[in-house]
């Protein structure tokens, strides 16, 4: 395990030093990411200029969801979303070189394309989450603190598992990689709002099949002390870590199946 971590640090460190050679581009990308994701929040604020609640949730409650989901998605985007470049590697034939090295191909993919410039997304969401928490005047019990930490960690793992499963699916869907976006970016977008506003089948498909309802919505029910209009059991918020672990195990297994299926382009 220690060895794996050392390999990761060397590869990711090399990428970071490389990125910083192009400082202006790095800064622009960072700022661009910050702005693009911030506009999603501006859209929420604009909506709340017209209504006072959305599905029974106030602006700061929705901001809490937005921030929590954004931090989790941003972290997974920074550390894992690089798997979406797998189709390019397959087309160019450079994926083969990863397979002859004595380290996991997944580790190499995520480490070599480690993207610290995507930090802008995380920072932006963290600021919104901070503002929401400050404005909501929550009574910080041990349970709430623990649930908040748990929420961010589980959320990051759930989104990471989705990226990895999507990356593995790309071994079959070389050209159709955009399908991934509907579960990754779509999942992130959907979890920014209380999920009971969605139609039943969409809610089930995107939230329960992919597990994204456990990223922010269920933990937030507990932290914000909101009633669940869907009438699901009250232990749902506590399931997030379990969902995260199961999702990661499944995604890892799917990746290994994909690698076994892989045939080089031979070019």
């Amino acid at each position, binding site marked *: 395990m220690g060895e794996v971590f050392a390999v990761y640090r060397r590869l990711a460190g090399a990428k970071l030093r490389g990125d910083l050679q*192009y400082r*202006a*581009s790095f800064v*622009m*990308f960072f*700022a*661009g*990411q910050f*702005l*693009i994701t911030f*506009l*999603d929040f*501006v*859209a929420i604020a*604009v*909506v709340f*200029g*017209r*209504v*006072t*609640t*959305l*599905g029974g949730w106030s602006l700061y409650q929705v901001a809490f969801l937005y921030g929590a989901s954004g931090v989790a998605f941003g972290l997974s985007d920074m550390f894992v979303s690089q798997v979406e470049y797998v189709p390019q590697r397959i087309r160019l034939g450079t994926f083969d070189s990863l397979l002859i090295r004595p380290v996991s191909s997944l580790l190499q993919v995520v480490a070599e394309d480690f993207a610290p410039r995507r930090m802008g997304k995380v920072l932006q969401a963290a600021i919104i989450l901070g503002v929401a928490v400050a404005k909501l005047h929550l009574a910080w019990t041990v349970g709430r603190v623990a649930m908040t930490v748990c929420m961010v960690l589980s959320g990051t793992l759930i989104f990471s598992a989705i990226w990895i499963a999507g990356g593995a699916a790309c071994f079959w*869907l*070389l*050209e*159709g*990689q*955009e*399908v991934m*976006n*509907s579960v990754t970016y*779509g999942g992130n*977008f*959907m979890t920014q*709002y209380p999920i009971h*506003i*969605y*139609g039943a089948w*969409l809610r089930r498909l*995107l939230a329960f099949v992919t597990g994204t309802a456990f990223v922010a919505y269920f933990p937030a029910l507990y932290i914000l002390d909101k009633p669940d209009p869907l009438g699901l059991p009250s232990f749902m918020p506590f399931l997030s870590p379990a969902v995260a672990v199961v999702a990661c195990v499944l995604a890892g297994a799917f990746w290994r199946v994909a690698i076994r299926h892989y045939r080089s382009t031979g070019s």
Partner: protein
Amino acid sequence: MRLYWEVARRGFRRYATYRAATVAGVLTNSVFGLIRAYILIAVFRQRGTIGTFDVTDAITFTFVTQGLLMPVGAFGRMDISERIRTGDVVVDLYRPVDFQAYWFAHDAGRAAFQLLARGIPPVLVGALVFHLRFPSSPTTWIAFAASLTVAMILSFALSFALNLTAFWLIDDRGTNQLATAIQLFLSGILLPIVLFPGWLEAIARNSPFAAIVELPVEVLLGKHPGRALIPVLAIQLLWAAVAVGCGRLVLGAATRKVVIQGG
């Protein structure tokens, strides 16, 4: 003229080749359309109408804008900046055709394909799930076609000018991302601009970005009937003329001082 027609046909066919990518894109646009529609339904449940929109207008708007995202809505889809970076652009500049017109023909072919293949399916998906509202009068459809055509020209001209910044910046991903962010917001793709607070709506409505997406869709929804159509088309045409002109100026400046990359 024959030449540009052939270039446009090649543009159409080039994009028609990627079938799986088209299906994947339609799926993604549809999913985002559904999510946005449900959010807007929750908003309109609190208020019957906002501006001139009711809930059916808002849902129809959402799916039509998702359909228009690829044909007219997105920046960064042309290869010009890539060709500037690699130096291949020198070949394009050698050709005995107008550089801007050549790329316009190519982009028109692409837009025509994407209007059919990426534009219509998400709207059909929306119509399966929700009640959408479309005009019954042929005049509204003709007005929409006119407004959309100007939107396509404007969208191309803005993209073209933006791509040319690569002559100076080499890496134009930063500017592209910034422009995309501003456009997504001001064009009504993230949220219909009728929901904006008054001052922000005024800025958006008079920007070139609303002329690309919001205005044509409002025309389709019958928000600008009869003579009210004239100012809408006028502002679209004005922005299109400005953008085409800017593109030519930037191109002139670029070709006078340019240093071609590569070797």
